[in-house]
């Protein structure tokens, strides 16, 4: 800056001070010079708002209000007294969802929190709502698990190994003794598949409310017995498909019901896992041996075993039986029972059932008219008899649609559930995405007007929040990863917790849970049809009048 310039400026400035009235206009200009900028911004903002409003109206087609899916609680209602049958991997998860964990597990969670401040599992567990339940009895045929179940049941205050515990629940060596106990109102059954049906029938006959893990049954004949027993009783029954509690599935159901995606012709679902644990090669406990495991009880109910063997023999599928004899003690078969048809229902019962139940929930499919399956043991050639790659197709001709299940245990590539229809396709992963079909009649006008971009995700929904294609990239990004969940809901809910909570509240309020015996019977029959189609290598049909599986 030159001296001359400074002097000029100063003079100008002094003038403005001295001659306010004279230079009033100039003064006002200098004071208000930047105000038009605000006008420009206001213009831009209003324009953007109008544009958003126009698009929002289209987005709102999907963003309707829904009724809450979570049941109201009666926390001061009756205390429910539980018995736990089976404390393996799933049994311990179910107990954690109920708020009961072993002190060792709590110590582990504390360590995780210490190592990583962002790991909130310990805090989440402590904050999990108290369901007003007590665990009065536990049963597991492996002594170590039985003791662990008891310590978890006594850990009412969710403490680590230095904590104070309530009295240990009674450890029962046989589940029938647990069922006979007068201080137990309800039981949770998380045993291997070959025991599910028998235990449900016995529990219902003992007047206990039942939560049983999926699948409902191991054999077809027992499925009818279970359904009859539950229907004739007053017990509250829930099958462990916690997917019934997934909020986006409820949303999808309503979108479909409102006709917003048009006519559904194909539902595509899958299982993709790629680790030994996911393929049921679970670790073998070092303290497991013939003296700590009641192998006789593990073998199963002789009536069920006969049903199983009769069927396998009658269809020439004996190559899938064994290969070990049933009375031969085997740690592998005890801990990795899912790998053998002798105890398991394979992919059909373990994982297809989750997918089928989700679709049955959203589309009210009922039992399929027919099923075909193919696959094989292609990767885990460890002596297992159940396939590790499986494709099952269910036909629903009265609904003019197919459900395709496709699974591999040797690739984790993420394939979201897809419900494909004439006007749009719903994809269900961690979020719900709706993509409008380019050939849609329903949305043709809006596609032509450029309001809807066909073929691209148009509407997204994640945990209570509707996001249309106009929302910010960040919002969409986080929605996709489900990160909005905990904030929108104020709390992160575990679906297993919600499913158990629903069952417990239904016991208190004498209501019907979401995955009752009707849904369970449909799930079991669909899975059995898929299994039989695989074992027999031919199409299985459902005779709806006679309620039986036929071969056409």
């Amino acid at each position, binding site marked *: *800056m030159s001296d001359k*310039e*400074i002097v000029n*400026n*100063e003079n*100008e*400035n002094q003038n403005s*001070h001295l001659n306010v009235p004279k230079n009033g206009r100039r*003064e006002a200009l*200098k*004071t*208000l*010079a*930047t*105000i038009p*900028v*605000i006008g420009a*911004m206001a213009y831009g*903002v209003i324009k953007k*708002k109008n544009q958003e409003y126009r698009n929002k109206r289209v987005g709102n087609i999907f963003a309707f209000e829904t009724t809450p899916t979570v049941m109201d609680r009666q926390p001061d209602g009756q205390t429910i007294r539980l018995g736990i049958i089976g404390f393996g991997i799933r049994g311990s998860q179910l107990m954690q969802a109920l708020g009961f964990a072993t002190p060792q597990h709590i110590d582990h969670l504390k360590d995780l929190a210490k190592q990583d*401040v*962002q790991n909130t599992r310990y805090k989440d567990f402590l904050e999990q709502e108290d369901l007003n339940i007590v665990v009065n009895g536990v049963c597991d045929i492996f002594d170590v698990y039985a003791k662990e179940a008891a310590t978890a049941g006594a850990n009412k205050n969710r403490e680590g190994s230095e904590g104070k515990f309530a009295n240990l629940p009674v450890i029962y060596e046989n589940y029938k003794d647990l069922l006979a106990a007068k201080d137990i109102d309800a039981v949770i059954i998380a045993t291997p598949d070959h025991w599910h049906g028998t235990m449900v029938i016995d529990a219902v006959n003992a007047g206990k409310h039942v939560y049983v893990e999926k699948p409902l049954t191991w054999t077809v004949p027992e499925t009818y017995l279970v359904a009859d027993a539950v229907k004739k009783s007053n017990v509250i029954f829930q099958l462990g498909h916690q997917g019934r509690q997934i909020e986006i599935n409820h949303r999808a159901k309503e979108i479909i019901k409102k006709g917003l995606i048009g006519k559904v012709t194909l539902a595509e679902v899958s299982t993709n896992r790629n680790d030994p644990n996911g393929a049921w090669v679970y670790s073998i406990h070092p303290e497991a041996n013939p003296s700590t495991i009641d192998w006789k009880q593990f073998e199963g109910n002789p009536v069920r075993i006969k049903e199983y063997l009769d069927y396998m023999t009658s269809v020439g599928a004996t190559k899938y039986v064994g290969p070990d004899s049933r009375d031969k003690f085997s740690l592998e078969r005890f801990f990795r029972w899912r790998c053998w048809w002798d105890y398991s229902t394979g992919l059909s019962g373990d994982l297809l059932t989750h997918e089928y139940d989700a679709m049955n929930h959203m589309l009210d499919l009922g039992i399929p008219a027919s099923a075909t399956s193919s696959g094989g043991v292609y990767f885990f050639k460890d002596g297992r008899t159940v396939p590790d790659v499986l494709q099952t197709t269910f036909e629903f001709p009265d609904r003019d649609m197919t459900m395709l299940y496709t699974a591999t245990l040797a690739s984790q590539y993420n394939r979201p559930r897809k419900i494909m229809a004439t006007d749009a396709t719903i994809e269900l992963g961690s979020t719900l995405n709706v993509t409008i079909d380019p050939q849609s009649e329903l949305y043709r006008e809006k596609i032509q007007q450029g309001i809807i971009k066909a073929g691209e995700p148009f509407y997204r929904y994640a945990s209570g*929040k509707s996001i249309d294609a106009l929302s*910010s990239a*960040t*919002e969409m*990004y*986080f929605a996709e*990863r489900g*990160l*909005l969940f905990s*904030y*929108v809901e*104020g709390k992160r809910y575990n679906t297993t917790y919600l499913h158990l909570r629903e069952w417990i509240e239904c016991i208190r309020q004498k209501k019907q849970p979401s995955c009752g015996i009707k849904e369970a019977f449909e799930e079991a029959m669909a899975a059995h049809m898929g299994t039989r189609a695989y074992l027999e290598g031919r199409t299985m049909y459902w005779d709806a009048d006679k309620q039986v599986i036929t071969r056409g």
Partner: protein
Amino acid sequence: MTTKNIYTRGQLTWLVVLRVLIGWYFMYEGLTKIMTPNWTSYAYLRDSQGWFAPFFTMLTDNAWVMSTVNAINMYGLTIIGLCMILGCFVQFANIGAIGLLSLYYLSHPPMLDVHYLIRPEGSYMWVDKNLIMLGAIAVLMLFPTSKLIGLDRWIFRKCKK
């Protein structure tokens, strides 16, 4: 701060333009947040990295703290931007802006080998746009213009009287 104009016309023009541009940026950021239903900084804070990440993550634990943080962002940014554009109480706005920018920088430091879920739209190592803007505002604090062009011209004269 002097009301005397010690700048050349060019200097004054570009200092004011810089002030208005930064103000525009702040104000529109704030307005967008206000206009977005249920806008929250939750995800951004959860995505914090670096030394101060535990602090920023901690803010998300409490609903009341979260709503305060959200309000500061929505209305703070808008008001700071408005003040910069209009040239009123600009020195206070500058301090607020430097405060917010420092927090943004500390919660999302552009360190090597750090990956954010919200990816920045450029390539940065140690220096990012927040830091540059912070530097620009520091310059504007030392070369103030609002008493020459802006409402402060009138406000501070009134005060003087």
